[in-house]
């Protein structure tokens, strides 16, 4: 390594400025997505709210506030020394579990779209503990799998069981809501972290088999609610149910498809303005991009995600700290599978689940979680040795 680079790195580490360690490409891509998301949330809600004599900027304002709070959280996550973060991990995990448990208590948790996933806070705010639990799980198992109590390069069986236990408690709680989309995303992240932790391949294979068999058994044994089965069925045949989930999926596909190459132009989508797709500002935000921005705009969004993920991979690869690498990998998997699940659902590649699209969808909890995840990546980047 050249001395200049060494010196630069030294300078960065020794003189932490307010924006120290912010990867410009990663930051730029996220900032662009946040800007697009703001426009799309506004596009998705303004006409409908105006038509119903409500403040057309209601969602816009709240979305901007969410981004502001999330950015503060991201900044905080970035500048804090992650060794400190590591110390707080058990507390973060504990808070996550408590939140998830609280959601299931009647009158504390509220049900939206069949899943009891929300806790109402004073002032009309709601919090979705599962979003924040993603972070505590990633931190938790990364901590366990990165600490080596022996000379071996690979985690021991004990480490593995501990890690699985740390993951299993929140997963089971989310399963009880039930929120299959989040379970899928967290499970995928857990398997990815375990795979990258250097665990023996047989473990990874075994976990994948358990995941597949578990998913299959769940759909057969009645663990899934009726509405979830319906969602799965309508994924197979979207025309089967014209007003329910199949209707939503069909509408989503039509809305995206009708955008064509260049789209109808922002705020000009008749499908969006007519609000033919439900949950347009949250889970189905990508339909707004598809219709109004066309292939150029929605393709750009996917491209930005690819850039973010590629940057994150290079951060994870470059760091020498096993904990940082596992956390980075976990965040990558979380983002990637959530993006794939959300856009895949919109485009008819995945069954319908209620997960938001990172950095774009309206929703405080997920926005905070995503930006904290982004902050974690920046943190690892800033402290890579």
């Amino acid at each position, binding site marked *: 390594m050249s001395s200049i680079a060494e010196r630069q790195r030294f300078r960065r580490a020794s003189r932490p400025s307010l924006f120290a360690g912010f990867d410009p490409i990663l930051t730029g891509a996220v900032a662009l997505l946040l800007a697009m998301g703001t426009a799309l949330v506004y596009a998705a809600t303004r006409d409908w709210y105006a038509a119903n004599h409500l403040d057309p900027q209601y969602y816009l304002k709240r979305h901007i506030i969410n981004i502001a709070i999330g950015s503060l959280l991201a900044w905080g996550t970035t500048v804090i020394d992650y060794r400190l973060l590591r110390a707080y991990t058990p507390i973060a995990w504990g808070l996550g579990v408590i939140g998830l448990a609280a959601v299931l208590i009647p009158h504390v948790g509220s049900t939206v779209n069949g899943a009891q996933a929300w806790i109402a806070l004073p002032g009309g705010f709601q919090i979705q503990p599962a979003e924040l639990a993603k972070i505590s799980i990633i931190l938790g198992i990364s901590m366990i799998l990165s600490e080596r109590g022996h000379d071996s390069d690979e985690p021991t069986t004990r480490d593995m069981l501990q890690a699985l236990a740390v993951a299993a408690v929140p997963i089971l709680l989310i399963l009880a809501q039930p929120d299959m989309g989040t379970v899928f995303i967290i499970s995928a992240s857990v398997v990815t972290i375990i795979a990258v932790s250097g665990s023996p391949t047989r473990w990874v294979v075994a976990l994948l088999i358990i995941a597949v068999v578990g998913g299959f058994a769940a759909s057969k044994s009645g663990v899934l609610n009726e509405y979830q089965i319906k969602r799965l069925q309508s994924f197979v045949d979207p025309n089967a149910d014209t007003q329910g989930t199949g209707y939503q999926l069909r509408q989503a596909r039509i809305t995206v498809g009708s955008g064509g190459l260049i789209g109808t132009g922002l705020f000009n989508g008749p499908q969006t303005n007519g609000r033919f797709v439900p949950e347009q500002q949250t889970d189905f935000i990508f339909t707004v991009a598809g219709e109004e921005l066309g292939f150029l705009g929605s393709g750009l969004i996917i491209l930005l995600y690819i850039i973010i993920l590629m940057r994150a991979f290079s951060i994870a690869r470059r760091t020498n700290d096993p904990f940082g690498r596992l956390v980075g990998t976990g965040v990558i998997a979380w983002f*990637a599978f959530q993006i794939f699940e959300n856009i895949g659902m919109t485009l008819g590649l995945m069954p319908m689940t209620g997960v938001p699209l990172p950095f774009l969808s309206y929703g405080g909890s997920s926005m905070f979680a995503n930006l904290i995840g982004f902050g974690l990546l920046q943190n690892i980047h800033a402290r890579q040795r």
Partner: protein
Amino acid sequence: MNQRSRLSLLVVQILIISLMAALFGRLFYLQIGAGPKYRDAALSIQSRDVINPATRGLIVDSSGVPLALNKVGLAITIDRITIDKQPDKGVSVMKSLALLLGLNYGDIFQKTRLCGELPKGKKAGCWTGSRYQPIPITKEADPNIALQIVENSDRYPGVDATPIAIRNYPAIAGVNGAHVLGYVGPMTEENLANTSGVKYFRSEAIGKTGLEIQYDKYLRGAPGIRTVIVDRKESITRISQNTKSTPGDHLVTNLDIRLQASAENALADAVRRARASGYKADSGAAVVMDVRSGRIIAIASYPTYDPNAWEKGLTVKQASDLFSEKNGVPALSRALQGLFAPASTFKSVSTVAAANAGYDLNATYDCPAQVQVGTRAFQNFESKAQGRMSLKKAIAVSCDTIWYRIAFDEWLRDGGLRPKANANDYFYNAARGFQINVKTGIDLPSESAGRLADRQWRKDWYDANKDFYCNYKDRATKAQQTPFLLELARENCIDGDKIRAGDAVNFSIGQGDTVITPLKLAQMYAAIANGGTIWQALVGKAIVKTDGTVIKTMTPEKLGTLPATPATLKFLQGALREVVISGTAAGSFSGFPVSVSGKTGTAEVFGKNLNGSKKDNTSWFASFAPSEKPRYAVVMMVSQGGFGASTSAVGVRKIYETLFGVKGSKVIPGLALFPDGKPPTKLPKISPATKVKKAP
């Protein structure tokens, strides 16, 4: 980082890139590959067409007097979008509206349901249009009630009163014209599914029968389309297209409204007279044709109906009455759909046949009381012998036995029951020459072709009925097993495929299985009158745009020439004149100042009426006038009307009286419909306000 970790990270990276690539590919497929398909799908989700039907063109007579026009009605409409937003879905609004209009709530409810909303079998009266257009509850509301609704709009949300165009048949000069004009009605699924390339909209009206359907593509115009973009709650967010409607073109007909009215009255009067004489007189028809062109100047059918009944809102009872046997099936146009044996009017055909067979038209023939044909004696109509007479006289007095003789002789000459391969078939060929088995080609729907009971027809009939007659005892009902019918069945089984002597002689006097429509007979007599040209019958004359431009003129086609020499036609014309001077129609036309030529016909009808009574004879009179320079052919037929002379000939006289301006036994100058004796050739100016020309 150990090797395995590094490898795992790479695998994860490749996996994730693949997932993103899959999204990218799928997005490309949806937006670029299948984009047009989804754009169409999106359009059908978002857009709703509101159709503003075009003003339908007028139907006018040859001098421009309207037979069909558009009236402004006051429609009380209900907007489904608005009433559906009411807490009770509009039930209370519809109930108070029912009270105000004096209607039944159930009817209003039914009228405001989209046909698709109702279960099968309960769709009667449903709204065939879309949810986005106001649904008319009545089209002829009282203006005071309409005012009440408009002034109390808060009490009647979604209810509105608007003027709308309704098709109206104004019955100027008392004309009815139901069968020839037809009527308009709502689109049916079949109309909408048509593949003719015309795009129909559900809320449009379409011609259902008569001229209204025949010339629908001209009369209908093009509707205006307003396309609105709606949201998921069906509220209109914007208007994307708004095209004005193009009014329909006018149809000028060859009809004369005064003569049409006269023909209808004369026919109804003939029916009344026949009934007064004790005949059933269940139906009838009258046709007036221009012999030089085939143009139809009047065409009437009895019984008839009110052509405005549809727009007024036909009740179920009215609809079933139109087709009920008991009421004489008023929906049926007797003039072009009714098939009847032509009886003695057919002797004109037989005259041509005899002339072609070489019989001397100027010779004298014996008219005995009966002619022995094989084992059966065929009676003269009057059942008495009239001695020798000229053929002209024979036609005038309608002697049957002369024709029996000739037909029987010709039948024998053609081989009798063992017909020769090269049989002359003078009678059948003459009938074929008159095209009695061919349609007149009139520009009206559902015309029936006549039936020519020739050798081929007989054979086909036999093949179809052989089984029935040869197994009569098993096939026929008890009531049909009379000795006479059993014998008939036996005969039919043995040689039913052959023309028997009886068939041949019956054919010569227009009895038996040969049947034609009154319109066809008018066409035949027009051809006799004009020197042998068979013209296509034509009601329509021209299609004219609202600005007066002529789009299309209808010119009758020459369909053929009678198989008769000029000498034969001259003889026939003279004989038909003699019928009116000294023959069977002399009484009916006594003192008539215009020379008329014609032939009476009184056809025996087999079978029974619904009440079990034996069917009365069909009364015919076929004619043309003026005899010296024929211009018009007039035919009247009254089913079960008794004698041709007393019922139909008298009716035809009344039509001629109107046509030529006859009062009593004088022609009143200026009273004739066409001052120069011919129907107008110039196209009239068209206006809904054109009045009937009155005689000075």
